[in-house]
């Protein structure tokens, strides 16, 4: 009887282990298998922001991974947290790049500027495996402007940028007006949870969505371009100033 119990225990252990370590390529997140591309390229943003009177150390939060449809020609979809000060920024998140056959899952990325606003080349890390939700952080824990970035268990530290943020942003972003799916669909939203900023001593929940800094869905960088929210593409619901969902309303 003991040996039978032992065999059953071993079988259970190996079954669970096999499930946890099995590769999960190309999860079936993409409710939209195709979207019509557009000749309009810009950057459209869905999420929240908060501006502070003085400097803070950075931003962090939990973002669900999603595998959206991305337009093959110059499209991109991403979701991130970011510290901002004017044109200077430092961000960590996930991004989905287009390819000819579009078979790939998103990857982690970081991108940042120095104190002059010069944008350094992006860095990408890893294929993202389950679980679906990862912790992201872009933070200068001391006042010397040396940043640490974290995406899940991937940590990049010692990045001397020489500036500190006075604004937190957390958004989903697309590059092609109609060909990029917003992160998320009607049934499976991309969730942003417990978005926080730090005053160097403590972490505080953000207060997105007040009259002075309303949540926004599908805002273009160039105001002369169409708004994806107004077009019925980008959607957002918020349950607090630091918890919100985004998705593409075109995707069932």
């Amino acid at each position, binding site marked *: 009887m003991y040996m039978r119990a032992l065999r059953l225990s071993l079988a259970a252990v190996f079954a669970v282990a096999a499930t946890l370590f099995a590769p999960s390529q190309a999860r079936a997140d993409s409710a939209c298998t195709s979207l019509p591309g557009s000749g309009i390229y810009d950057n459209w943003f869905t999420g929240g922001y908060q501006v502070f009177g003085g400097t803070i150390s950075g931003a962090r939060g939990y973002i669900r991974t999603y595998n959206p449809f991305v337009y093959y020609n110059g499209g991109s979809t991403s979701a991130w947290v970011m510290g901002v000060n004017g044109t200077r920024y430092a961000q960590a*998140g996930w991004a989905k790049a287009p390819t000819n056959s579009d078979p790939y899952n998103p990857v982690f990325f970081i991108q940042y500027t120095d104190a002059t606003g010069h944008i350094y080349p992006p860095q990408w890390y890893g294929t993202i495996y389950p679980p679906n939700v990862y912790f992201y952080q872009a933070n200068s824990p001391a006042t010397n402007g040396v940043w640490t970035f974290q995406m899940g268990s991937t940590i990049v530290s010692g990045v001397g940028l020489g500036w500190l943020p006075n604004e937190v942003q957390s958004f989903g972003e697309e590059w092609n007006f109609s060909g990029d799916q917003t992160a998320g669909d009607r049934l499976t939203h991309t969730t942003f949870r417990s978005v926080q900023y730090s005053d160097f001593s403590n972490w505080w929940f953000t207060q997105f969505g007040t009259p002075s800094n309303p949540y926004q869905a599908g805002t273009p960088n160039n105001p002369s371009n169409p708004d994806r929210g107004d077009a019925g593409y980008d959607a957002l619901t918020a349950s607090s100033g630091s918890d919100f969902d985004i998705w593409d309303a075109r995707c069932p």
Partner: protein
Amino acid sequence: MGRKMSVRLAFAFVLVLAYLTLGGGTQIRAALMQASSSSLQPPAEASVQSSSAGSSVNVNAVLQECDRANVAVVATSFSVSAVDRATAERAVGAIGAKGTAAIAVPALVTSGGTLGVAPTANTIQKDSRGQAVLSRPAWALVFRGQSIQRPSAGPARHKASLQPLPRQLAPVTVVAAIVDAQTGEFLMGWGCD
């Protein structure tokens, strides 16, 4: 008594195995790895130089303009590789690279999480499964002549603002990437221009 002890030992073995397998093992394996190696320095051939933010110079120059101090790339030859060059190149489609790599070197790659500094036990990079990227058999690749979209354009414009944010954006034309030679997993990539 002896049978009971054997059964208890067997159950203890199962519990330890389960712990090692289901995540708690990560720390234990890391501790064992650290115990067996006082410092996780990159291979001796991989001498490195420090730099400020951004790219830097690795005197190995395996990746030429894409060399970085915190990524030690030591060219080698694989005795067994489950992933051929073409498969590794396709894996870099994860960041939008297309076509054939200008440089494709079988290598042992050690990557650290501190920019401009050689990897150590405390800064060793973990892959997406939490495993250290330490002398990892991998394809080290450089793609030139690309037009890769940046993952983000930077800050969002506040909707109330009428002015677009200034952008200094250009597609990335040269990227380096590291692909695991055993699993084909894309481990990391970075723009070089």
